[in-house]
């Protein structure tokens, strides 16, 4: 069976900005996400994690290499993927309900049908009764829930998530992580979850991919996470297996994180 998402020798080089050299964000990336698999990608800050996700979404064309979605090379926007952005992606002029149903509207499903399904999803993410609020009237966590419902209402087989909860406080975050796991286990989709937080990665995923520091980021580690499901993200962190895994992965990452940190510091200094 073909993988849901497979990167084959993907490289992304960005054209030079005002005289500087061209920047190679990612290079020689080959990795596959199986159907129904929850894969987290961790790496030091600024290593090109989001670049990979944009390639998978079809928002960015790789300089070389092929991206296959269920075995077929991707051309244009990936219509079988939902994307949850790190930054605010909700349309501020639409109410929560209208935001959730936006994707249905784009597909020509409107009126009562969209409304009914929108309300249903709002309820599922714990926002029943908040449908008529505008995004600015919701808290950060609630806006993330709306974004989650907005993506899941279209029932995409692939979910791309770019540090979706990084802006939330710790409590809200573990709540959201648990809710995500619950929604995911009810209807297994292939997930590519980008994060810089190793604990988050381990507690959520079936597999954790470690990226090297940029430039020319590539995967340097691939760790299966054989922890039992269903999981509670707060409790699983205390299990000895979790700690052992964390240790192992952290060891493989440490040098890269330090490298990435040094680079960022040099960039700031220079």
């Amino acid at each position, binding site marked *: 069976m073909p993988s849901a998402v497979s990167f084959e020798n993907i490289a992304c080089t960005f054209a030079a900005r005002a005289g500087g050299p061209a920047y190679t964000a990612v290079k020689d990336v080959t990795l596959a996400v199986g159907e129904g698999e929850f894969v987290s990608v961790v790496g030091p800050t600024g290593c090109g994690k989001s670049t990979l996700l944009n390639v998978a979404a079809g928002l960015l064309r790789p300089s070389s290499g092929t991206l296959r979605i269920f075995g077929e090379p991707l051309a244009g926007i990936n219509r079988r993927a939902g994307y949850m952005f790190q930054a605010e992606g909700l349309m501020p002029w639409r109410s929560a309900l209208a935001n959730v149903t*936006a994707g249905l509207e784009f597909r020509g499903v409107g009126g009562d049908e969209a409304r009914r399904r929108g309300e249903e999803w709002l309820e599922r993410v714990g926002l029943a009764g908040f449908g008529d609020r505008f995004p600015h009237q919701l808290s950060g966590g609630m806006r993330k829930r709306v974004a989650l419902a*907005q993506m899941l209402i279209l029932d995409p087989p692939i979910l791309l998530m770019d540090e979706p909860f990084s802006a939330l406080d710790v409590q809200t975050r573990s709540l959201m992580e648990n809710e995500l796991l619950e929604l995911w286990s009810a209807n297994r989709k292939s997930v590519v979850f980008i994060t810089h937080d190793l604990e988050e990665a381990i507690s959520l995923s079936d597999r954790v991919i470690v990226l090297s520091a940029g430039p020319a980021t590539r995967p340097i580690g691939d760790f299966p996470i054989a922890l039992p499901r269903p999981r509670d993200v707060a409790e699983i962190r205390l299990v000895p297996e979790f700690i052992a895994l964390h240790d192992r992965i952290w060891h493989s990452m440490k040098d890269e994180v330090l490298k990435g940190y040094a680079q960022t510091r040099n960039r700031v200094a220079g």
Partner: protein
Amino acid sequence: MKRRLWPAQLALLAAIFVAWQILTQPGLLPPFVWENPDRAAFFFGEPVKMFQAIWAWFADGTIYRHLWVTLEETVLAFLIGSLAGLAMGLWLGLSPAASALLDPYITAMNAMPRVVLAPIFMVWFGLGIWSKVALGVTLVFFIVFFNVYQGVKEVSPVVLNNAVMLGARRKQLLRYVYLPSATSWLFSSLHTSVGMAFVGAVVGEYLGSASGVGYLIQQAEGAFDINTVFAGILVLTAFALVLDFAVGRAERRLLQWRPGQSETEQL
């Protein structure tokens, strides 16, 4: 700190008019600037006579026709100017090539004092309402255009990408993302653009017409009737206030999705 201010504001207004009357009424104070006791009233008018003129206008109903004409011109100038500005702003905002080509022309036309176009419009459109509407349109257009252009340019790339990932095609992006974003900028310039439409209408009337409040002022000025000139100005000011109030109401309805300063609810 929730004290009502309007009694004080009304009192201030009354005080201004009373002082005005005392300083200008012939023979009330011994003359101290001019020798002739009628001179102050000649230059500055007398509030009592102004209000008599206004009263006369409303009593015999002549003012309504003129107010209606001015309102008509204002509304038409606002609507046409806004639609043209919206269309042009969307087009140039979405087409970098067209925007680069037309940039110097837009800048030049915006920098030009457009009131000098009034005589040309008079020749083109005659003395009726359309020459005033045209003048108002040239004023409104640029305000709306620049706002919409800015609105299109500043659409958040994340919101845009999000809409794309949710399945929006190019046309849908225009309708669901660019247009709402641009119109929100249009609405936030509502006060200025309605004001400008009003200016265009009145200035146009003043420069040549057969009706409208600007025409009344111009007629009175021709007869050195300073009281009627001031009466016209007062009517215009009151009219502008009513217009501004109406715009404020419309704005609050249309922009209710925008965060206010302290109305954000964190739940």
